[in-house]
């Protein structure tokens, strides 16, 4: 799936949680939203984009995708 499309969506989610989340909590909140509302291939694509350098992802969003990537790795291993 087109990376620019997903980057924009992810950064928009990040912009909301920038104001809403408690300090330090934004990455987890963003990751939680993506986990609950994005399809598997979309999550896989954004994780792949991160693995390719994650260009364009805002810092908190990058942190969120890292959380998702770790969860996927853990799930694959279990």
């Amino acid at each position, binding site marked *: *799936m*087109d990376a620019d*499309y997903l980057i*924009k*969506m992810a950064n*928009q*989610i990040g*912009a*909301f949680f*920038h*104001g*809403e989340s*408690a300090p330090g909590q934004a990455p987890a909140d963003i990751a939680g*939203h993506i986990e*609950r*509302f*994005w*399809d*598997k*291939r*979309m999550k896989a694509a954004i994780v792949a984009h991160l693995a390719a350098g994650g260009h364009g992802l805002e810092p908190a969003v990058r942190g969120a995708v890292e959380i998702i990537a770790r969860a996927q790795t853990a799930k694959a291993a279990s």
Partner: protein
Amino acid sequence: MYAIDHHDLGTPATDGAPVTLDIDGQSVTVPAGTSLMRAAALAGGAIPKLCATDTLKAFGSCRLCLVEIEGRKDFPASCTTPVASGMKVRTQSETLSKLRRGVMELYVSDHPLECATCPAQGHCELESMAEAVGVKASPYGGTGPRHQGQPLDNSNPYFNFNPDLCIVCSRCVRACNEVQGTFALSIDSRGFASKIAASQDELFITSECVSCGACVESCPTAALSEKSLITVGKPTEAVSTTCAYCGVGCSFVAEVKDNAVVRMAPNRDGDANHGHACVKGRFAYGYATHADRITKPMVRANITDPWREVSWDEAIAYAAGEFKRIQAKYGRDSIGGITSSRCTNEETYLVQKLVRAAFGTNNVDTCARVCHSPTGYGLKATIGESAGTQAFTSVMDADVIVVIGANPTDGHPVFASQLKRRLRQGAKLVVIDPRAIDLVRTPHVRAEHHLALKPGTNVAVVNAIAHVVVTEGLAREDYVAERCDTDSYARWKAFVSQPANSPEALEAVTGVPAATVRAAARLYATAKNGAIYYGLGVTEHSQGTTTVMAIANLAMVTGNVGREGVGINPLRGQNNVQGSCDMGSFPHEFPGYRHVSDEATRQLFSSAWGVPLQGEPGLRIPNMFEAALDGSFKGLYVQGEDIAQSDPNTQHVSAALTSLECLVVQDLFLCETAKFAHVFLPGSSFLEKDGTFTNAERRISRVRQAIEPLAGLADWEVTCRLSNALGYPMNYAHPSEIMDEIARLTPTFTGVSYEALDRLGSIQWPCNADAPDGTPTMHIERFVRGVGRFYVTEYVPTDERVNSRFPLILTTGRILSQYNVGAQTRRTDNVAWHSEDRLEIHPDDAEARGINSGDWVGIASRAGDTVLRATVTERVQQGVVYTTFHFPESGANVITTDNSDWATNCPEYKVTAVQVTKVSQPSEWQTRYRQFSKETTRVARETPLSTAG
């Protein structure tokens, strides 16, 4: 003429203390304030009447309902005389008969007595009252001045006004005033010259009349009469059902003759509409039998092939075969389905069940994605339920009403009539909208404040209002402390209190004077009951969900949730938006808004449906398009939804649909989406099937079959056949069995059944052991989520910015006579009022571009360009242009972008940067569109089906 099965009680009901009196020797007990006429009718009697009807205040003009009261010398009109304790009334006597005959003879002397050929024959009140008082002819002969031979006004496409038949009872005038609230009719002149006049004695079609039909219904003769009573004939059967247009969900009696609808008469017992209707629901049902209806299934291997008519079995087998082939080749998640808010609850439930259980994926979505998905997310997060909090009648207890991003007189006209009634009683109105919608100033209604904000700044305005509430000490701290999460409240309060959120700081952003924001905030916050109503002007933004949350914050901080007269009220666009969402149409939720990742819920459905179910969310509609373009999504089943016209960035959508290997469209017509389809399954209109709709107030109402399905099958039957062909059995004998399954699996629906709906009329969910008759008002003692949750709602400007290349902002909306993509209303005589989409532009912007009303103008955005005709008007503010999207050839969505809401992907229809220029020819897209439409709608019965690619 009223519904053929209606019994009129003469005057409206009252709710006073019981009063006992004697009527014709019978003891009668009725509420204080009841008229003698109504009391007699409730006791089983019938006092003759002409000017009285129970939907209108008593008027006392016809003098036919005179009665005798013991101890009084005169003969008072029973319609205007209230009951009194111990009163003794006689409704029949020789003297009364003589008086009534005298009155009736005068009426009859000036009325044609050609009853046998009259369209109202059998239901004409003048005819029946003449018979009741014993008058068969006028003793005055045909001499002297009369009102006969006046010109017929047949300008309205749906009804005639024949002044020769008018008895000047004023029922039409009063209906227009009291019921509809348009004040388009009046009695012109005086005495013998008195006559009914539309606006300034104009034809109905060119007057201010909005064609709601209230006047036609209230007319006791055939002076105002539906043309269908002549063209189709007199109805012989009445079927109670629910309208298929907007989210008000009006109840109607479909009057039928020989499997054809003669009239749609609004149901007096309808809990949503109370006997009122609009031009769409009452009159615009002709699409159901329009020549464009496709009634035979069709298939083709490629969209460049002509369609080939086939049997149901062949079409279903072909679709199932293609879906299986695609899944075998590309994987289980390469296909999906879309449910429709124009279909019933039972049908949407079945489609999502088919996708989850038979396809084995969660790739199901619904058209609510592009309208109210932010409502679902925002209200669930803040107050715990993805639905409005009130019944429509709640507005009659509101003291201050805030309308945000909604245009009720056009989009939800029957609710608007009720809203205007409350405003005429003295409630105050605040309108927050970029345009001067009719409610800002209309007869007997004027908004106290109109916050004409710049499109895209809703969050900033609502935050500014909240800032005033909190910083001026207007917050209901006691309510918040008792009912809300105090930690989130503290964080939110600190946020909105910041100077950056003050009206003054945000004035440059929103364009709304700070003083106006402050005044509106004070008005709402200090009201005894403050109610918020909102529409797509709130949700269809990149911050749609944030605005819904901001609205919920505002309602909670002012204590305006949990009782009559207050609340958060989303005005749903289509009739079953609420229902389609309730039924689990979103890719992340099962019916009842339960997330697919919830193990217990998934086990419940898995056990009931007999198959394993996925715990990961599926694709949303915009995601489906992206996945189609990247090659991972290849097959789609679309029931009753026209994504090619209704979704934004048309060229993007077209490219995605073109890339599908199998698109199955189930619809009434070869709609825009069907032009990209490989299988067409004929749909059935709401008149042709049984089921239920759920309106904006969570009210579940029955849809009942009035005529036979034109294609032989109702939509739910088609879905069952497709599922069976896929190898997943669906065997329901009737939609009631589907509802029974929904009730078994959905905690908020456990008390819902067709038996309960027949018994109660309609039910507002939650309906279960705790609320066996339903729940008109939610969150009364506590919020559904436990405590109300405040969210910090930072204003984030949209990425869609104006610049020198695109200096104007385009926003979109609806008009009264047309509905959504227009598939239904364009195929009715409603085109008499609106036959094309136009671009509204402010006079200053028009002048700068040399544009006059009626000129063709090109509208170009970053997504595309199209051409419309211009209407120069001050209704839009400078810098903003506006259009509707009811006609596909307009290409309104060629211009809109694929920007969307951060939480839900609801498209940002309301903000598109554009340039407007005067042009002389259609856009390139429009030229291509005409050719494409011609090529993709060909039907060739003899063309063999080529092999799928």
